[in-house]
């Protein structure tokens, strides 16, 4: 991707910019900390970091309203933080502790918050897509105008059930926004090695679903596209597809040596397109904030992340009695 000019801050207030900056930075620092804890053996199994993709969820959550739902696959930490879930509960789930959102029984890939209408956290690539449409189905059935953000990656975009879902979603005009987070690699397979389709969002045309490509490194562009998609869905016009072009700086998971791309490619992206840096520059050049203002935000976020990490270490492991609970709901 060629270097582009930084995003313009048209029609956006200082408060909004500051919020985007803080929300994106929170995700990045949280994920960096998660990476450290993983290295220390405190987090086990798979751990998929969201570093680099922060603008996607922050931009779209800015377009969401109370009562809207969201669901994603396994690279889900950013989505949880962006929709307002408590970093302590998320981090404690990563460490498999009682204080985690699933009381340690879900882990990195399987976390939920009914309160925040975050429906997972799904470990099976593509499986969350029809579920997202089902959440939208329930909203429509109940006569509300709420929408469901259904996130999946460029890898999931080649799963058959995504297209079964497109068909049903358009057939029944479900209020669902399909967000394809195209970070260019499905694990180690680049989009170009996985499909001849020039773009993923255009596949929606086969089902009559409108959509567009969005610059996922520009939080303002994501927000604007999110507003448009939300408006479309809330108006009862059925689904909408956003293919958000983004990039993950880290490996697919913690054990990924990332031999499928060059260090230069990653470095170039970080230097020229980083979403957080773009907003930082907007704030500074637009005189919306001083270096000191931003440092204060950085310090506050670092403190909150450290607090989450401390909580995640100190929270006890689930009681052994938890092994056999939550298998069935009481009839």
């Amino acid at each position, binding site marked *: 991707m060629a270097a582009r000019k930084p995003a313009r801050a048209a029609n956006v207030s200082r408060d909004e910019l500051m919020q985007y900056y803080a929300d994106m930075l929170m995700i990045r620092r949280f994920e960096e900390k998660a990476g450290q804890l993983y290295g220390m053996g405190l987090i086990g199994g798979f751990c998929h970091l969201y570093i680099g993709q922060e603008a996607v969820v922050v931009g779209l959550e800015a377009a969401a309203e109370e009562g809207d*739902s969201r*669901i994603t696959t396994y690279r889900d930490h950013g989505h949880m933080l962006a929709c307002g879930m408590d970093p302590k509960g998320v981090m404690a789930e990563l460490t498999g502790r009682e204080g*985690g*959102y*699933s*009381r*340690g*029984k*879900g882990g990195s890939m*399987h*976390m*939920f*918050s*009914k309160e925040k209408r975050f*429906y*997972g*956290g*799904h*470990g*099976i690539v593509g*499986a969350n*897509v*029809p*579920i*997202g*449409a*089902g*959440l*939208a*189905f*329930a*909203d429509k*059935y*109940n006569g509300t105008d709420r929408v469901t953000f259904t996130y999946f990656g460029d890898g999931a975009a080649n799963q*058959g*059930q995504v297209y*079964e*879902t497109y*068909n*049903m979603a358009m*057939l029944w005009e479900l209020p669902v926004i399909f967000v394809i987070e195209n970070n260019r690699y499905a694990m180690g397979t680049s989009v170009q090695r996985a499909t001849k389709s020039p773009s993923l969002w255009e596949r929606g045309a086969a089902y009559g679903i409108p959509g567009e490509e969005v610059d996922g490194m520009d939080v303002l562009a994501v927000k604007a596209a999110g507003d448009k998609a939300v408006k479309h869905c809330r108006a009862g016009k059925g689904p909408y597809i956003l293919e958000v072009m983004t990039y993950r700086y880290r490996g697919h998971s913690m054990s990924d040596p990332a031999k499928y791309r060059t260090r230069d490619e990653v470095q170039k992206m970080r230097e020229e397109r980083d979403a957080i840096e773009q907003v930082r520059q907007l704030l500074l050049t637009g005189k919306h904030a001083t270096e000191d203002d931003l440092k204060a935000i950085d310090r506050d976020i670092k403190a909150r992340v450290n607090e989450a990490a401390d909580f995640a270490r100190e929270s006890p492991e689930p009681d052994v009695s938890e092994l056999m*609970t*939550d*298998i*069935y*709901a*009481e*009839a």
Partner: protein
Amino acid sequence: MATEILMPALSPTMEEGTLAKWLKREGETVSAGDIIAEIETDKATMEFEAVDEGILGRILIPEGTEGVKVNTPIAVLVEDGESADAAAPASAPEPAKTEAPAPKAPAEAKAPAPAAAKMEPDWPEGTETRKQTVREALRDAMAEEMRRDAGVFIMGEEVAEYQGAYKVTQGLLDEFGAKRVIDTPITEHGIAGLGVGAAFGGLKPIVEFMTFNFAMQAIDQIVNSAAKTLYMSGGQMGCPMVFRGPNGAAARVGAQHSQCYAAWYAHIPGMKVVMPYSASDAKGLLKTAIRDPNPVVFLENEILYGKSFDVPVMEDFTVPFGKARIWREGMDVTLVSFGIGMTYAIEAAEKLATEGISAEVIDLRTLRPMDTDTVLASVRKTNRCVTIEEGFPVGAIGNHLSAVIMEQAFDYLDAPVINCTGKDVPMPYAANLEKLALVTTEEVLAAVHKVTYR
């Protein structure tokens, strides 16, 4: 030369039907391809075309006649100038021709007439009952629950306008409308996942699979999404929904349409698995399934759909999960089965009675939770056990029961438990092979003779 027109078999499981209407009158000329009658099968009302030409000499079965067996002569086609009266007696009342389509034989062999429940009915003594087919009982269960809870809806292939591929959802569209009775594209994986999402969103979906054979396309959603989410979410989010449809072998539909999934789903923690035999259980258990806050796999059977049983006439009749039903009390051997396997168990018990062997017959009804207490109590009394199911032998429900009995009632056993199952082969198409591939009553009898040393 006069030609007999025989009652056709218009579905794989049809044994008899209703001659709903004659569209040609006696004396009318018939060409090949003309619609001559409307016949109501166990699935639908079908138009019946003539395959020969001639004059409809005589109608043997008047319209409106119910229960006309397949292959019964229903009319006589004559050539111009020929007398129908002369032709008719020449053909005998015995219609079975060797080349005639023969779904009758295997279907009958697999499904002996259901016996009346002997023991422990699930309704108070003195309650009025009426005969109802399993099909009608399932439909009534859904209709009652849809009246009771506006969040209950059904979706599946052909459930609405077509009135159900097996007529199980007949009439639901008329009563509840297209919002709650939803025809879907052929998209099993998709509707299973969408149903899970709707359940997460607070609704109570019933997802109908045209058969559970097709649910293999959806099994990831059933197992990974529906059954595991409550646990993975630390109890925050459950998945209150029902996956239902016919399961197991029907008749002559071959390997890809004839598998029993009882053991597959019973393997999964977080899942509840129901496999009813009788109409009252079908009704009472389906109502319980719809109300249950957990995902329920509800395994029906195409051959049982048309069987009639006593169903109590009650305002709100439900059957609890995890409670087996003792169909017949006995002292010498315990026969444990579920679903269509019960037809063999009951038939075997009746034959054994004539030999002086008293068999206790237990219908598990739900496989998860499974009422092993009732089985163990019976085995402690009879000291012998034979399990019966149509599914494959490896990892069968009977295997699990054998292990439970061995662990908990070993000292009571006078013989090893024998599992009668379907054979370890993909289902063949040929009628004779299909019959052999399924479990047979003879095999049950042989197993009982073995465990009773008689």
